[in-house]
C-alpha cells in the first residue's frame, strides 16, 4: 500500500466512522440510560429503532407530513411507547420478584412483539428506502469525501448528545435520573420518585433510538430486520463501560471508526467481525470499559 493510499483510507475511514459512529453513540447512550436506571440491557432497542424508522417513513411518505412535524411526532409517539412498555410490562415483571433474567426476557419479548406487529402491517414486506432528508451532494475534506447529508447526520447527532449532556447535568429531572443510576437507595431517600424516573428514562431512551433511526434510515435499506444495527450500539456501550454516558459516546465513535478502518484496510467482508474484535479487546484488556471507572460490583 502506498503512503498516498494509506492516507486516503485513513482519512476516509475517520470521516465515515464519525458519521456512523455518531449513530452508534446515540444508540449506546439510549442503552446505557436504561441499564443504569432499570438494571436491564434492552434487547428490544433494535426493534424500537426499526419501528420508529417506519413510523417516520409512513408519516413522511404515506401521510405527506412535513419533515419538521414528522420528527417531533415520531419522537413523541416512540417516547410514549417506551414509557408505556416500562409501566405495563417491566414494572410488573420486576414487582413479581423479577430476577434480572426475567427483565431481559421481557425486553426480548418486546423485540419479537414489535417485529411481529411490523410484519403484520405489510409495510415491511418489501425493502424500502427512506427519502434523503438532506442533499446528497458530496463535499471533500482533505482527501476524504462525504455528503451534505453525512454532515447533517453528524451535526444533528452531536447536537442531540450535547442537549442530553445539558439535560443530565443541569436539570432537576436529569440529575435525578443520574442519581437513580448511581445509588437508587439514596435517590429514594432524597425524595426522588424512582418509578417516575424509570418510565421517563424508558421514554427518553426510546426517543433517542428513534432519533438515531430517523437520521440513519436514508443511508440504509429499510426492512423489518434493520434493528440489527443496534448490535453496534451494544458494542459501543460495552467499549464505553456500559454504565458511563460519556463512555457510550466515546464507544460509539470508536466502533464507527474501527468498523470503517477494517472495511477499507482489511476487507469489506471483515466489517461484520470488527465490532466484536473491538469488544473482545476491550473486555480482555480493560474489562471496565474505556470510561467505566473501577471494575467494582454494582451495588443494589
Amino acid at each position, binding site marked *: 500500500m502506498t503512503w498516498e493510499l494509506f492516507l486516503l483510507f485513513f482519512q476516509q475511514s475517520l470521516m465515515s466512522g464519525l458519521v456512523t459512529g455518531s449513530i452508534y453513540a446515540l444508540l449506546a447512550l439510549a442503552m446505557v440510560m436504561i441499564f443504569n436506571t432499570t438494571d436491564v440491557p434492552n434487547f428490544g432497542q433494535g426493534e424500537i429503532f426499526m419501528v420508529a424508522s417506519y413510523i417516520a417513513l409512513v408519516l413522511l411518505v404515506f401521510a405527506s407530513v412535513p419533515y419538521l412535524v414528522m420528527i417531533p411526532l415520531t419522537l413523541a409517539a416512540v417516547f410514549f411507547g417506551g414509557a408505556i412498555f416500562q409501566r405495563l410490562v417491566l414494572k410488573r415483571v420486576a414487582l413479581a420478584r423479577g430476577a434480572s433474567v426475567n427483565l431481559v426476557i421481557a425486553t426480548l419479548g418486546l423485540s419479537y412483539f414489535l417485529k411481529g406487529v411490523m410484519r403484520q402491517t405489510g409495510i415491511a414486506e418489501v425493502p424500502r428506502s427512506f427519502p434523503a432528508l438532506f442533499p446528497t451532494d458530496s463535499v471533500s475534506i482533505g482527501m476524504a469525501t462525504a455528503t451534505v447529508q453525512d454532515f447533517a447526520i453528524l451535526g444533528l447527532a452531536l447536537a442531540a448528545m450535547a442537549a442530553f449532556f445539558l439535560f443530565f447535568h443541569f436539570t432537576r429531572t436529569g*440529575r435525578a435520573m443520574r442519581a437513580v443510576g448511581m445509588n437508587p*437507595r*439514596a*435517590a429514594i431517600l*432524597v425524595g426522588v420518585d424512582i418509578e417516575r424516573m424509570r418510565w421517563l428514562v424508558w421514554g427518553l431512551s426510546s426517543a433517542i433510538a428513534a432519533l438515531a433511526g430517523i437520521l440513519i434510515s436514508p443511508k440504509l435499506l429499510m426492512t423489518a430486520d434493520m434493528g440489527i444495527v443496534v448490535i453496534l450500539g451494544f458494542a459501543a456501550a460495552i467499549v464505553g463501560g456500559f454504565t458511563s454516558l460519556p463512555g457510550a459516546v466515546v464507544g460509539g465513535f470508536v466502533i464507527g471508526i474501527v468498523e470503517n478502518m477494517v472495511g477499507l484496510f482489511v476487507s469489506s467482508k471483515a466489517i461484520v467481525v470488527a465490532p466484536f474484535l473491538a469488544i473482545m479487546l476491550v473486555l480482555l484488556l480493560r474489562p471496565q470499559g474505556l470510561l467505566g471507572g473501577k471494575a467494582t460490583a454494582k451495588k443494589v
Partner: protein
Amino acid sequence: MSDLLALEGIAAGYGSIQALSGVSLRVTTGTIVALLGSNGAGKTTTLNTISRVVPLTGGRILFDGEPIHELPSSRVVMRGISQVPEGREIFARMSVEENLVIGAHVRRDRAGIAADLERVCDYFPVLKSRFRQMAGTLSGGEQQMLLIARALMARPRILLLDEPSLGLSPIMVQQIFKIIRRLNEDGLTVLLVEQNARLALAVSQYAYVMENGEIRFEGRSADLVKDDGLRRTYLGV
C-alpha cells in the same frame, strides 16, 4: 410541647422475618430523641418505615398529627422528614455541590436552594472547600458530613440520623455530634439512632432502647445514664 412524630404500634418485616412488632415512640418538637439497641435490633428498619422505604404491616405513623404511613417516600421528604442513612449512601460520581443540590430535589424555590447551599456550608465549612470534588473521593468523616448536609438541603423539620458515628475517628465523631447539637439548638428536631449509647444519651433528652424488634425501655436520657443494670444489659457501656 407537641409530638412532631409519633409511631403507634408499628410492625414491619422482610418476607417471613418479623423485624418490628408493636413499636411505639414519640419525638417531641425541638428535642433530640435517641433510639438505641444492639446490631439487628430493628433501628434502621424503624427509620425506614418512617421514610416509607420499608412497608408497614401494622400500626400508624403520625407526623404533626397527620398520618403519613400511606404516603409515597417522596411525599414524606416533602412533608419535612429527611433521613441520613447509615453506610455512606452518597452519589459517589457526582460533585459535592451536586450531592447537595440533589438533596433539595423536593423543592422548587431556586433562590431558597442557593441560600441553603451557603447555610449548610456554615455548619460544614470543609464541604465548601470541596465543592467541585467528586463525593467518592471524600474521607469517611467528610462523607458523613455530606450526608447530613444533603439531608438538610430538603429543609426538614425532623432529621432521622442512622448511626452517624459508625466507623469514624473519635475526633470526627465529636465534631459530628457537636454539629448535631448545634442543629438542634437552631430548631431542628432529631431522631438519633446509635449503637454508641454513651454519646447518644449525652446529646439527647429522651431515649428508647430496642431489642429484637421491640421497645424494651424508655425514659429521660439523664435517668437512663444512671441505670447501671440497663447500661450493662442493653447498652454495653
